């Protein structure tokens, strides 16, 4: 046995400061995730975050339900209910028909009432 040894000091962890500090660093790094979680839990964003997930879930449920309703609705009902764009804008029927058919009618024809031939 080494005669310089007189007590339990060889077991003192700080005899090797680098190793001791490495242990501190490792422990700190291992705790970083939990510290972040705790810091976030007390931040102002936490209540918002608690609502985000349920709100998104509810929105997704509503979207699925709406899609289901649309899928089950008869196609004829959808067609009848849907107004044309031109009609919605208040365009005269003659212009609407002309536009939808792609006809290149003269302006005077469009301006005359139905059934009256232009010159």
């Amino acid at each position, binding site marked *: 046995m080494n005669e310089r*040894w007189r007590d339990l000091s*060889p*077991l003192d962890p700080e005899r090797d400061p680098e190793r001791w500090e490495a242990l501190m660093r490792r422990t700190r790094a291992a705790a970083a995730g939990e510290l972040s979680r705790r810091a976030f839990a007390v931040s102002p964003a936490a209540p918002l975050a608690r609502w985000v997930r349920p709100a998104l879930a509810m929105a997704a449920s509503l979207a699925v339900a709406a899609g289901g309703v649309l899928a089950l609705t008869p196609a004829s009902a959808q067609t009848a209910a849907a107004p044309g764009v031109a009609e919605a804008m208040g365009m005269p029927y003659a212009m609407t028909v002309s536009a939808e058919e792609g006809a290149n009618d003269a302006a005077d024809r469009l301006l005359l009432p139905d059934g009256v031939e232009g010159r």
Partner: protein
Amino acid sequence: MLTIRAGEPPRPAPHDRSRRAPLHTETDARLIERARRGEGDAFDALMRRHMRAAYAVALAQTGDRDDAEDVCQDAFVTALQRLDEVRRPEAFVGWLLQIVRNRAHNLRRHQRVRSALPLDAAEEAPARARGPAREAEDAELRARLLEALENLTPTQREVVLLYDVQGWSHREIAAAVGTTEGAARVHLHHGRRALRALLGPTYREEDTP
């Protein structure tokens, strides 16, 4: 006699035997409160204040430096995760050391299972960088000390290491180990006597107050 109470910032021991963590002005209670809010500097202060004691207990339980360090790291992270369970912040260190014992127990049980496996199934422990000459000498001394400590009971090992390495008072040791001051003195006495018998005259027994 050291006048510190558990949970208060440590003050230097009159006999200057202690190798304590750096002084910190905040109590354990305050540090725990801040660590619960995720304040890293508070956790850091708790770690620096109590890591030596945790290491002493971990070493007493595992008998191996690498294992003791792993246990300490694991125990501090577990303590942080369960910090909301601390009802008596003034008894934090006792609570922490119980976590250390539990983790050490789990590690030993895991190692027993691993030791039953074929050699090629066990991973080799990573080698750590060490200074060659001093590390070799220290390693020899440590090996002999740890071998001798193995002959003590776990409680005797804890008491001897907390007293002789960590520099705690009997009162602090009694609170941490969960016994009385008188019983802590008896454990220290028996532990030292066993070490003296095992190590011979090179083991210098300090004056037991």
